[in-house]
Protein backbone atom coordinates (compact mmCIF):
# COMPACT_ATOMS: atom_id res chain seq x y z
CA UNK A 1 0.00 0.00 0.00
CA UNK A 2 1.35 3.43 -0.84
CA UNK A 3 1.80 5.98 1.95
CA UNK A 4 -1.10 8.04 0.61
CA UNK A 5 -3.42 5.02 0.39
CA UNK A 6 -2.55 3.84 3.88
CA UNK A 7 -3.17 7.33 5.25
CA UNK A 8 -6.54 7.36 3.55
CA UNK A 9 -7.34 4.06 5.28
CA UNK A 10 -6.33 5.44 8.67
CA UNK A 11 -8.37 8.55 7.98
CA UNK A 12 -11.38 6.35 7.14
CA UNK A 13 -11.00 4.49 10.43
CA UNK A 14 -10.56 7.71 12.39
CA UNK A 15 -13.61 9.30 10.81
CA UNK A 16 -16.00 6.39 11.17
CA UNK A 17 -14.99 5.10 14.60
CA UNK A 18 -15.21 8.68 15.93
CA UNK A 19 -18.52 9.42 14.26
CA UNK A 20 -20.17 6.30 15.63
CA UNK A 21 -19.00 6.75 19.23
CA UNK A 22 -18.87 10.56 19.61
CA UNK A 23 -22.48 11.12 20.66
CA UNK A 24 -22.23 8.43 23.36
CA UNK A 25 -18.80 9.66 24.40
CA UNK A 26 -20.19 13.17 24.82
CA UNK A 27 -22.94 11.83 27.08
CA UNK A 28 -20.30 9.86 28.99
CA UNK A 29 -18.04 12.91 29.35
CA UNK A 30 -20.83 15.23 30.52
CA UNK A 31 -22.27 12.72 33.01
CA UNK A 32 -18.73 11.87 34.11
CA UNK A 33 -18.21 15.43 35.38
CA UNK A 34 -20.60 15.14 38.37
CA UNK A 35 -19.60 11.48 38.83
CA UNK A 36 -15.99 12.53 39.51
CA UNK A 37 -17.33 14.39 42.55
CA UNK A 38 -19.99 11.80 43.42
CA UNK A 39 -18.84 11.42 47.03
CA UNK A 40 -19.08 15.16 47.67
CA UNK A 41 -22.36 15.56 45.80
CA UNK A 42 -23.96 12.52 47.44
CA UNK A 43 -22.89 13.74 50.84
CA UNK A 44 -24.34 17.15 50.02
CA UNK A 45 -27.63 15.70 48.72
CA UNK A 46 -27.77 13.07 51.44
CA UNK A 47 -31.22 12.40 52.83
CA UNK A 48 -32.15 10.74 56.09
CA UNK A 49 -30.90 11.34 59.60
CA UNK A 50 -27.27 12.17 60.42
CA UNK A 51 -25.20 9.61 62.34
CA UNK A 52 -24.73 10.18 66.06
CA UNK A 53 -21.57 11.98 67.19
CA UNK A 54 -20.12 9.75 69.90
CA UNK A 55 -17.11 9.74 72.21
CA UNK A 56 -13.99 8.18 70.78
CA UNK A 57 -13.71 4.49 71.55
CA UNK A 58 -17.49 3.93 71.58
CA UNK A 59 -17.98 0.33 70.46
CA UNK A 60 -19.87 -0.42 67.28
CA UNK A 61 -23.13 -2.34 67.29
CA UNK A 62 -22.72 -6.01 66.23
CA UNK A 63 -23.40 -6.56 62.53
CA UNK A 64 -25.78 -9.40 63.46
CA UNK A 65 -27.97 -6.88 65.28
CA UNK A 66 -28.08 -4.55 62.26
CA UNK A 67 -28.95 -7.48 60.02
CA UNK A 68 -31.73 -8.58 62.38
CA UNK A 69 -33.11 -5.05 62.34
CA UNK A 70 -33.03 -5.02 58.51
CA UNK A 71 -34.80 -8.38 58.37
CA UNK A 72 -37.46 -7.13 60.77
CA UNK A 73 -37.96 -4.12 58.47
CA UNK A 74 -38.45 -6.34 55.39
CA UNK A 75 -39.42 -9.84 56.60
CA UNK A 76 -40.29 -11.08 53.09
CA UNK A 77 -36.94 -10.15 51.56
CA UNK A 78 -33.44 -11.63 51.53
CA UNK A 79 -30.17 -10.08 52.64
CA UNK A 80 -27.72 -9.47 49.83
CA UNK A 81 -24.90 -7.28 50.95
CA UNK A 82 -23.40 -5.40 53.90
CA UNK A 83 -21.07 -2.47 53.26
CA UNK A 84 -18.96 -0.61 55.86
CA UNK A 85 -18.49 3.06 55.01
CA UNK A 86 -14.80 3.94 55.20
CA UNK A 87 -15.22 7.63 56.01
CA UNK A 88 -18.32 7.67 58.23
CA UNK A 89 -19.55 5.42 61.05
CA UNK A 90 -22.37 4.08 58.93
CA UNK A 91 -23.22 0.64 57.59
CA UNK A 92 -25.27 -0.06 54.46
CA UNK A 93 -27.40 -3.18 54.25
CA UNK A 94 -28.72 -4.27 50.86
CA UNK A 95 -31.89 -6.39 50.58
CA UNK A 96 -33.94 -7.61 47.63
CA UNK A 97 -37.09 -9.68 46.98
CA UNK A 98 -34.95 -12.69 45.91
CA UNK A 99 -31.33 -13.64 45.23
CA UNK A 100 -32.11 -14.65 41.66
CA UNK A 101 -33.96 -11.48 40.66
CA UNK A 102 -32.88 -8.29 38.88
CA UNK A 103 -29.93 -6.76 40.83
CA UNK A 104 -31.59 -3.36 40.41
CA UNK A 105 -34.38 -4.45 42.78
CA UNK A 106 -31.85 -4.26 45.63
CA UNK A 107 -32.25 -1.36 48.05
CA UNK A 108 -29.72 -0.16 50.60
CA UNK A 109 -30.63 0.88 54.13
CA UNK A 110 -28.20 3.12 55.99
CA UNK A 111 -27.57 2.34 59.67
CA UNK A 112 -25.69 4.17 62.38
CA UNK A 113 -22.73 1.94 63.27
CA UNK A 114 -22.71 3.10 66.91
CA UNK A 115 -26.39 3.31 67.82
CA UNK A 116 -27.79 0.75 65.37
CA UNK A 117 -30.49 3.22 64.33
CA UNK A 118 -31.90 3.07 60.80
CA UNK A 119 -30.92 6.45 59.31
CA UNK A 120 -32.26 6.19 55.79
CA UNK A 121 -34.41 3.72 53.87
CA UNK A 122 -34.33 4.79 50.21
CA UNK A 123 -36.13 3.10 47.27
CA UNK A 124 -34.44 0.34 45.27
CA UNK A 125 -31.71 0.91 42.68
CA UNK A 126 -34.23 0.76 39.86
CA UNK A 127 -36.02 3.83 41.22
CA UNK A 128 -32.78 5.47 42.33
CA UNK A 129 -31.85 5.60 38.63
CA UNK A 130 -34.13 8.58 38.37
CA UNK A 131 -32.53 10.62 41.12
CA UNK A 132 -29.96 13.14 39.85
CA UNK A 133 -26.88 11.04 40.56
CA UNK A 134 -28.68 7.85 39.57
CA UNK A 135 -29.49 9.44 36.23
CA UNK A 136 -25.87 10.45 35.73
CA UNK A 137 -24.69 6.94 36.57
CA UNK A 138 -27.23 5.18 34.34
CA UNK A 139 -26.41 7.42 31.36
CA UNK A 140 -22.71 6.91 31.99
CA UNK A 141 -22.71 3.16 32.55
CA UNK A 142 -25.63 1.20 31.10
CA UNK A 143 -28.30 3.51 29.58
CA UNK A 144 -30.83 2.04 32.08
CA UNK A 145 -30.58 -1.45 30.58
CA UNK A 146 -28.14 -3.35 32.81
CA UNK A 147 -25.70 -5.75 31.17
CA UNK A 148 -26.68 -5.11 27.49
CA UNK A 149 -26.12 -1.38 27.96
CA UNK A 150 -22.80 -2.02 29.69
CA UNK A 151 -21.59 -4.15 26.80
CA UNK A 152 -22.86 -1.61 24.27
CA UNK A 153 -21.10 1.32 25.94
CA UNK A 154 -18.02 -0.88 26.36
CA UNK A 155 -18.04 -1.33 22.58
CA UNK A 156 -18.38 2.45 22.14
CA UNK A 157 -15.32 2.76 24.38
CA UNK A 158 -13.52 0.31 22.11
CA UNK A 159 -14.37 2.46 19.07
CA UNK A 160 -13.07 5.49 21.00
CA UNK A 161 -9.75 3.70 21.56
CA UNK A 162 -9.52 2.83 17.84
CA UNK A 163 -10.25 6.50 17.07
CA UNK A 164 -7.41 7.53 19.40
CA UNK A 165 -4.94 5.13 17.78
CA UNK A 166 -5.86 6.18 14.23
CA UNK A 167 -5.75 9.80 15.37
CA UNK A 168 -2.16 9.38 16.54
CA UNK A 169 -1.20 7.85 13.19
CA UNK A 170 -2.69 10.88 11.40
CA UNK A 171 -1.01 13.32 13.79
CA UNK A 172 2.45 12.70 12.28
CA UNK A 173 1.73 13.68 8.66
CA UNK A 174 -0.45 16.62 9.79
CA UNK A 175 2.38 18.02 11.88
CA UNK A 176 5.17 17.46 9.34
CA UNK A 177 5.57 21.14 8.58
CA UNK A 178 4.26 22.55 11.86
CA UNK A 179 5.88 23.11 15.22
CA UNK A 180 4.36 21.42 18.25
CA UNK A 181 1.50 23.49 19.62
CA UNK A 182 0.91 25.53 16.47
CA UNK A 183 -2.62 26.93 16.34
CA UNK A 184 -3.18 28.87 13.11
CA UNK A 185 -5.65 31.46 14.33
CA UNK A 186 -5.12 33.96 11.51
CA UNK A 187 -6.36 31.66 8.76
CA UNK A 188 -9.72 29.95 8.32
CA UNK A 189 -11.81 28.87 11.30
CA UNK A 190 -11.59 25.27 10.13
CA UNK A 191 -7.78 25.39 10.19
CA UNK A 192 -7.79 26.84 13.71
CA UNK A 193 -10.03 24.04 15.00
CA UNK A 194 -8.07 21.40 13.12
CA UNK A 195 -4.92 22.59 14.90
CA UNK A 196 -6.70 22.68 18.25
CA UNK A 197 -8.15 19.20 17.70
CA UNK A 198 -4.64 17.90 16.97
CA UNK A 199 -3.05 19.80 19.86
CA UNK A 200 -5.55 18.82 22.55
CA UNK A 201 -5.85 15.32 21.14
CA UNK A 202 -2.13 14.64 21.46
CA UNK A 203 -1.78 16.43 24.81
CA UNK A 204 -4.63 14.41 26.35
CA UNK A 205 -3.77 11.20 24.49
CA UNK A 206 -2.36 9.18 27.39
CA UNK A 207 -5.13 10.23 29.80
CA UNK A 208 -7.91 9.57 27.26
CA UNK A 209 -6.36 6.20 26.48
CA UNK A 210 -6.13 5.17 30.14
CA UNK A 211 -9.64 6.37 30.98
CA UNK A 212 -10.99 4.80 27.78
CA UNK A 213 -9.39 1.39 28.29
CA UNK A 214 -10.24 1.25 32.01
CA UNK A 215 -13.79 2.30 31.11
CA UNK A 216 -14.07 -0.69 28.77
CA UNK A 217 -12.70 -3.02 31.46
CA UNK A 218 -15.18 -1.66 34.01
CA UNK A 219 -18.05 -2.29 31.59
CA UNK A 220 -16.84 -5.91 31.39
CA UNK A 221 -16.86 -6.36 35.17
CA UNK A 222 -19.82 -8.74 35.22
CA UNK A 223 -18.50 -11.12 32.52
CA UNK A 224 -14.98 -11.03 34.04
CA UNK A 225 -16.40 -11.83 37.45
CA UNK A 226 -18.53 -14.60 35.97
CA UNK A 227 -15.38 -16.19 34.49
CA UNK A 228 -13.82 -16.24 37.96
CA UNK A 229 -16.97 -17.71 39.47
CA UNK A 230 -17.02 -20.39 36.78
CA UNK A 231 -13.35 -21.41 37.22
CA UNK A 232 -11.32 -20.52 40.32
CA UNK A 233 -14.30 -20.22 42.63
CA UNK A 234 -15.62 -23.61 41.54
CA UNK A 235 -12.26 -25.14 42.46
CA UNK A 236 -12.13 -23.38 45.82
CA UNK A 237 -15.60 -24.61 46.73
CA UNK A 238 -15.39 -28.08 45.14
CA UNK A 239 -15.90 -29.75 48.52
CA UNK A 240 -19.33 -28.10 48.84
CA UNK A 241 -20.57 -29.05 45.41
CA UNK A 242 -22.99 -31.79 46.38
CA UNK A 243 -24.06 -30.50 49.78
CA UNK A 244 -27.20 -28.63 50.65
CA UNK A 245 -26.79 -24.98 51.66
CA UNK A 246 -26.95 -24.55 55.45
CA UNK A 247 -30.34 -23.71 56.89
CA UNK A 248 -28.91 -22.28 60.11
CA UNK A 249 -26.33 -19.55 59.39
CA UNK A 250 -23.37 -18.78 61.61
CA UNK A 251 -23.04 -15.28 63.05
CA UNK A 252 -21.83 -12.68 60.53
CA UNK A 253 -19.70 -11.09 63.26
CA UNK A 254 -17.91 -14.39 63.81
CA UNK A 255 -17.43 -14.80 60.08
CA UNK A 256 -15.93 -11.29 59.86
CA UNK A 257 -13.62 -11.99 62.79
CA UNK A 258 -12.39 -15.18 61.12
CA UNK A 259 -11.81 -13.33 57.85
CA UNK A 260 -9.89 -10.54 59.62
CA UNK A 261 -7.61 -13.13 61.23
CA UNK A 262 -6.98 -14.79 57.87
CA UNK A 263 -5.78 -11.53 56.26
CA UNK A 264 -4.22 -9.46 59.05
CA UNK A 265 -3.84 -5.77 58.24
CA UNK A 266 -6.50 -5.85 55.54
CA UNK A 267 -9.53 -3.59 55.74
CA UNK A 268 -12.88 -5.33 55.47
CA UNK A 269 -14.87 -3.33 52.94
CA UNK A 270 -18.05 -5.36 52.73
CA UNK A 271 -19.42 -8.85 52.50
CA UNK A 272 -21.90 -10.63 50.27
CA UNK A 273 -24.46 -12.70 52.13
CA UNK A 274 -24.68 -16.45 51.37
CA UNK A 275 -26.94 -16.84 48.33
CA UNK A 276 -26.06 -13.45 46.84
CA UNK A 277 -24.85 -13.58 43.20
CA UNK A 278 -21.32 -12.59 44.32
CA UNK A 279 -21.12 -15.07 47.20
CA UNK A 280 -21.90 -18.81 47.16
CA UNK A 281 -24.85 -20.59 48.75
CA UNK A 282 -22.42 -21.94 51.38
CA UNK A 283 -20.25 -18.93 52.10
CA UNK A 284 -20.08 -15.42 53.32
CA UNK A 285 -17.87 -13.69 50.73
CA UNK A 286 -15.88 -11.09 52.63
CA UNK A 287 -14.26 -8.41 50.46
CA UNK A 288 -11.04 -6.91 51.79
CA UNK A 289 -8.51 -4.29 50.70
CA UNK A 290 -4.76 -4.67 51.27
CA UNK A 291 -2.71 -2.46 53.58
CA UNK A 292 -0.23 -0.79 51.20
CA UNK A 293 -1.10 2.11 48.83
CA UNK A 294 -1.01 -0.33 45.93
CA UNK A 295 -2.80 -3.32 47.49
CA UNK A 296 -5.40 -0.99 49.02
CA UNK A 297 -6.82 -0.79 45.48
CA UNK A 298 -6.94 -4.57 45.08
CA UNK A 299 -9.80 -6.70 46.29
CA UNK A 300 -8.96 -9.90 48.17
CA UNK A 301 -12.04 -12.08 48.74
CA UNK A 302 -12.14 -14.33 51.79
CA UNK A 303 -14.58 -17.24 51.73
CA UNK A 304 -16.03 -18.03 55.14
CA UNK A 305 -18.15 -21.14 55.66
CA UNK A 306 -21.67 -19.94 56.37
CA UNK A 307 -22.43 -22.81 58.74
CA UNK A 308 -19.25 -22.89 60.84
CA UNK A 309 -17.81 -19.36 60.41
CA UNK A 310 -14.44 -20.93 59.54
CA UNK A 311 -12.37 -19.59 56.68
CA UNK A 312 -12.56 -21.90 53.66
CA UNK A 313 -10.05 -19.98 51.54
CA UNK A 314 -8.39 -16.66 50.92
CA UNK A 315 -8.85 -16.28 47.17
CA UNK A 316 -5.94 -14.89 45.21
CA UNK A 317 -7.62 -13.08 42.37
CA UNK A 318 -6.33 -13.88 38.88
CA UNK A 319 -4.74 -11.19 36.68
CA UNK A 320 -8.01 -10.16 35.07
CA UNK A 321 -9.67 -9.38 38.40
CA UNK A 322 -6.55 -7.47 39.50
CA UNK A 323 -6.80 -5.55 36.24
CA UNK A 324 -10.49 -4.91 36.95
CA UNK A 325 -9.71 -3.71 40.48
CA UNK A 326 -7.02 -1.31 39.23
CA UNK A 327 -9.28 -0.08 36.44
CA UNK A 328 -11.63 1.45 38.98
CA UNK A 329 -9.38 4.11 40.53
CA UNK A 330 -7.69 4.78 37.17
CA UNK A 331 -11.11 5.43 35.64
CA UNK A 332 -12.73 7.30 38.55
CA UNK A 333 -9.75 9.51 39.44
CA UNK A 334 -10.64 9.16 43.11
CA UNK A 335 -7.27 8.00 44.40
CA UNK A 336 -5.33 11.24 44.82
CA UNK A 337 -7.47 13.61 46.85
CA UNK A 338 -9.45 16.62 45.69
CA UNK A 339 -6.66 18.06 43.45
CA UNK A 340 -6.70 14.86 41.36
CA UNK A 341 -10.49 15.05 41.04
CA UNK A 342 -10.25 18.65 39.83
CA UNK A 343 -7.55 17.67 37.31
CA UNK A 344 -9.78 14.78 36.22
CA UNK A 345 -12.70 17.16 35.63
CA UNK A 346 -10.51 19.60 33.64
CA UNK A 347 -9.09 16.77 31.51
CA UNK A 348 -12.66 15.60 30.94
CA UNK A 349 -13.72 19.11 29.84
CA UNK A 350 -10.84 19.29 27.35
CA UNK A 351 -11.84 15.85 26.04
CA UNK A 352 -15.26 17.33 25.32
CA UNK A 353 -13.50 20.06 23.29
CA UNK A 354 -11.66 17.36 21.30
CA UNK A 355 -14.94 15.53 20.61
CA UNK A 356 -16.91 18.62 19.58
CA UNK A 357 -14.07 19.98 17.43
CA UNK A 358 -13.98 16.58 15.75
CA UNK A 359 -17.67 16.82 14.85
CA UNK A 360 -17.17 20.42 13.69
CA UNK A 361 -14.25 19.42 11.45
CA UNK A 362 -16.30 16.63 9.89
CA UNK A 363 -19.21 19.02 9.23
CA UNK A 364 -16.89 21.77 7.96
CA UNK A 365 -15.16 19.33 5.66
CA UNK A 366 -18.48 18.10 4.36
CA UNK A 367 -19.55 21.70 3.82
CA UNK A 368 -16.27 22.41 2.05
CA UNK A 369 -16.75 19.35 -0.15
CA UNK A 370 -20.37 20.26 -0.84
CA UNK A 371 -19.38 23.83 -1.64
CA UNK A 372 -16.79 22.49 -4.06
CA UNK A 373 -19.37 20.21 -5.67
CA UNK A 374 -21.85 23.09 -5.92
CA UNK A 375 -19.20 25.29 -7.48
CA UNK A 376 -18.33 22.58 -9.98
CA UNK A 377 -21.99 22.07 -10.80
CA UNK A 378 -22.55 25.76 -11.19
CA UNK A 379 -19.53 26.02 -13.44
CA UNK A 380 -20.92 23.14 -15.44
CA UNK A 381 -24.39 24.70 -15.62
CA UNK A 382 -22.92 28.07 -16.57
CA UNK A 383 -21.00 26.57 -19.41
CA UNK A 384 -24.15 24.64 -20.37
CA UNK A 385 -26.27 27.79 -20.28
CA UNK A 386 -23.61 29.64 -22.25
CA UNK A 387 -23.66 26.99 -24.96
CA UNK A 388 -27.44 27.02 -25.07
CA UNK A 389 -27.45 30.78 -25.19
CA UNK A 390 -24.98 30.99 -27.99
CA UNK A 391 -26.89 28.31 -29.88
CA UNK A 392 -30.16 30.18 -29.43
CA UNK A 393 -28.48 33.45 -30.26
CA UNK A 394 -27.22 32.21 -33.56
CA UNK A 395 -30.58 30.71 -34.55
CA UNK A 396 -32.85 33.50 -33.30
CA UNK A 397 -30.78 36.45 -34.29
CA UNK A 398 -32.99 37.50 -37.22
CA UNK A 399 -36.17 37.15 -35.12
CA UNK A 400 -34.82 39.26 -32.30
CA UNK A 401 -33.48 41.91 -34.61
CA UNK A 402 -36.79 42.08 -36.41
CA UNK A 403 -38.62 42.27 -33.09
CA UNK A 404 -36.46 45.04 -31.80
CA UNK A 405 -36.71 46.66 -35.15
CA UNK A 406 -40.47 46.41 -35.04
CA UNK A 407 -40.65 47.90 -31.54
CA UNK A 408 -38.48 50.87 -32.28
Amino acid at each position, binding site marked *: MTAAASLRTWYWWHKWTSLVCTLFLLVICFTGLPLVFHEEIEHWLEEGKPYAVVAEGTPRVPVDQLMASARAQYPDEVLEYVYFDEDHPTVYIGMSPSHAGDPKLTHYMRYDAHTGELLHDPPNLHEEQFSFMGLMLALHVDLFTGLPGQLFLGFMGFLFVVALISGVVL*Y*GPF*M*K*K*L*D*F*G*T*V*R*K*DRSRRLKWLD*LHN*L*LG*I*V*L*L*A*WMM*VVGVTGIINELSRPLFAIWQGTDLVELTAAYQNTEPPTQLASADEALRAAAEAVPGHRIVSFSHPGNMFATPHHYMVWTHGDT*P*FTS*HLIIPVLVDAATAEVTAVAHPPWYLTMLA*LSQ*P*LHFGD*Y*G*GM*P*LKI*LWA*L*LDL*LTIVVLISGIYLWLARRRATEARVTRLMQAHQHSGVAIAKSARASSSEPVRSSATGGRS
Partner: protein
Amino acid sequence: MNSRRSFSRIWAAPIGLIALTCFGLLAALLGTGIWHWASWLCLAIPLGIGIGYWIRPGNKKPV
Protein backbone atom coordinates in the same frame (compact mmCIF):
# COMPACT_ATOMS: atom_id res chain seq x y z
CA MET B 1 19.66 12.25 9.57
CA ASN B 2 17.02 14.55 8.21
CA SER B 3 14.21 12.06 8.78
CA ARG B 4 15.45 11.41 12.29
CA ARG B 5 15.37 15.13 13.00
CA SER B 6 11.86 15.48 11.66
CA PHE B 7 10.75 12.46 13.70
CA SER B 8 12.01 13.98 16.93
CA ARG B 9 10.61 17.40 15.95
CA ILE B 10 7.13 15.90 15.63
CA TRP B 11 7.20 13.29 18.39
CA ALA B 12 9.53 14.55 21.15
CA ALA B 13 6.86 16.67 22.84
CA PRO B 14 4.04 14.07 22.56
CA ILE B 15 6.26 11.29 23.93
CA GLY B 16 7.35 13.50 26.80
CA LEU B 17 3.73 14.32 27.62
CA ILE B 18 2.70 10.67 27.48
CA ALA B 19 5.53 9.77 29.87
CA LEU B 20 4.54 12.58 32.26
CA THR B 21 0.87 11.55 32.21
CA CYS B 22 1.65 7.88 32.84
CA PHE B 23 4.00 8.77 35.68
CA GLY B 24 1.38 11.11 37.14
CA LEU B 25 -1.37 8.47 36.94
CA LEU B 26 0.78 5.81 38.61
CA ALA B 27 2.43 8.01 41.25
CA ALA B 28 -0.81 8.60 43.17
CA LEU B 29 -1.78 4.95 42.76
CA LEU B 30 1.44 3.50 44.16
CA GLY B 31 2.37 6.09 46.77
CA THR B 32 1.02 8.70 49.13
CA GLY B 33 2.22 12.06 50.45
CA ILE B 34 4.93 13.43 48.15
CA TRP B 35 3.82 11.05 45.39
CA HIS B 36 0.40 12.68 45.35
CA TRP B 37 2.04 16.06 44.82
CA ALA B 38 4.19 14.57 42.03
CA SER B 39 1.03 13.15 40.47
CA TRP B 40 -0.83 16.48 40.57
CA LEU B 41 2.14 18.27 39.03
CA CYS B 42 2.70 15.70 36.29
CA LEU B 43 -0.97 15.75 35.27
CA ALA B 44 -1.22 19.54 35.47
CA ILE B 45 1.64 20.02 32.98
CA PRO B 46 -0.08 18.50 29.90
CA LEU B 47 -3.26 20.33 30.88
CA GLY B 48 -1.37 23.63 31.16
CA ILE B 49 0.44 23.06 27.87
CA GLY B 50 -2.81 22.31 26.05
CA ILE B 51 -4.62 25.36 27.39
CA GLY B 52 -1.48 27.53 27.11
CA TYR B 53 -1.00 26.94 23.37
CA TRP B 54 -4.75 27.31 22.85
CA ILE B 55 -5.07 30.76 24.41
CA ARG B 56 -1.64 32.03 23.30
CA PRO B 57 -2.34 35.10 21.17
CA GLY B 58 -2.03 34.47 17.41
CA ASN B 59 1.13 32.62 16.54
CA LYS B 60 2.12 33.45 13.02
CA LYS B 61 4.34 30.53 12.18
CA PRO B 62 5.29 30.07 8.56
CA VAL B 63 3.20 27.27 7.11
